């Protein structure tokens, strides 16, 4: 009986993985923009930047991409979007249902996978299972890249994992790490700026404010998504995603202006 699959040996498989990975890694040691965090805001920013011809790498600490976009609230996998952000769902081809005027709901897995696909299709590359460790700083503390390591390294006791991180460079870094605002916190640790901490929940106002405050927080560093809430002490917004997607668009726009 004829075999269905081509006769390929183990070494060929390994060689393909190593070769492709190394080639991409080599290419992305320097890029236009590094986005830390592969949630909805980071993905949207990455998608728009690559569509504009920029070279973008998303660093994601988990194996999976998408952050909290798979699930709405309380482990229920329906996501909600308030007007006018359903425009982005239309753009990405994500089906949704109008619950009431101004509010739509979509299937979490469908929405998330479409957004990831859109980012991949436009040319975003990913370093998943990779944890942000620190920032690369240049003159006047301008942000010029990130220091990163494999996620499992940070999960193991220091005594048995003395593994130094590596650094990659970019002209712009975007903090899309959600409530943790990990990248901005690296500046706070050095006393360069002081974040305000996350505010209390105020759904009705928070989405506008998050989009409004998305932008450059420090030379070379743009903050987007829920990290904006932590940096500026803005109200939290609960399980709705319109602002995440729109903030991603704004972050990309601001980055493009800086990358001219």
């Amino acid at each position: 009986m004829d075999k269905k699959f081509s006769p390929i040996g183990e070494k060929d498989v390994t060689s393909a993985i190593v070769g492709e990975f190394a080639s991409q890694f080599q290419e992305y040691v320097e890029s236009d923009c590094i986005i830390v965090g592969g949630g909805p805001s980071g993905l949207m920013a990455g998608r728009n930047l690559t569509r504009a011809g920029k070279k973008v790498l998303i660093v994601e600490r988990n194996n999976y991409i998408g952050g909290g976009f798979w699930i709405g609230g309380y482990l229920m996998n329906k996501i909600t979007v308030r007007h006018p952000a359903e425009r982005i769902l239309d753009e990405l081809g994500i089906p949704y249902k109008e619950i009431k005027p101004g509010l739509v709901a979509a299937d979490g897995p469908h929405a998330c996978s479409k957004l990831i696909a859109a980012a991949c299709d436009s040319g975003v590359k990913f370093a998943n299972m990779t944890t942000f460790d620190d920032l690369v700083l240049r003159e006047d503390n301008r942000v010029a890249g990130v220091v990163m390591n494999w996620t499992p390294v940070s999960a193991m006791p220091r005594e048995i994992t003395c593994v130094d991180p590596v650094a990659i460079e970019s002209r712009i870094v975007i903090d899309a790490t959600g409530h943790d605002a990990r990248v901005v916190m690296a500046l706070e640790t050095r006393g360069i700026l002081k974040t305000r901490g996350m505010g209390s929940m105020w759904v009705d106002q928070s989405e506008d404010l998050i989009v409004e405050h998305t932008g450059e927080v420090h030379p070379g560093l743009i903050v987007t998504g829920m990290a904006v809430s932590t940096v500026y002490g803005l109200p939290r917004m609960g399980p709705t995603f319109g602002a995440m997607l729109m903030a991603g668009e704004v972050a990309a726009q601001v980055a493009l202006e800086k990358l001219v």
Partner: protein
Amino acid sequence: MKTRKLNHIILYNEGVDDNVDLPQIASYLKDRLGRIDVEIRSSLFSQELSPEQISFYSKRLASARISSANQFWEEHEPLYGEVEYEKRSIQGKTKSIGILYEGIELQLIYSELVPQTESNLRCVNIVLTKRLFATWDNANKRYHARVVLLGIPSLISTTGIIEAPAKPRDYYILKQQYEMIGKDLLELGERFSGQYIDYDDDRMTEIIKGYAMQSVFYYLTGTPFCQDSRCRLFNAHWQDEMISAQLHGEYELCPKHAYLLSDL
């Protein structure tokens, strides 16, 4: 009680929503106060400000933000993004709300913009704003959002009308439950519909009239509030008290305050 002579009332429109009918508020004051001029002006920030002044006031506004309701405000260096946001708000490029400001600091900023010739107790300056402000309560060591802050100028917050007086107790209990299970809070609004003033509420203009009158009485007598919960000068702490005093009061002003007004 002696009253001070007033000669001018100026209502500054600091970007309030369309459901606030400023000409109607001006007519109301004119009608009740007789010969006093009532004028509507655009925002105090809309006067010609140099780019340096815009930067200066943006920074002042940004540093007047309160980041924790339980911590007394201290002057601090604002973040770049905060200043940029305030710059846009000064220029009328954003109408979003949700920032909480230190009330006295905010009033101080506005007071610097009131024209010098009108900065006195004979000219009632009222700023109608969407900005939400709070004042520190030393008794329980926390900030409380306010509807009105009296002085030169007096500030009336339309967001404060919605957020400062407390909603029915059950509203907060259910809100907590809704948030826990990720239920749409808009549904909660429907459940308590009419029991509190909400965004785009068509009762907003009528409510503001009472707070404008409190500002007028502050200038007239120095004592803006009334203990009588049926009087529009009643200092309401609950939404139902506010709605009752401003919309369903037995009378508009209590006999004492009505007399003061008739005797001007």
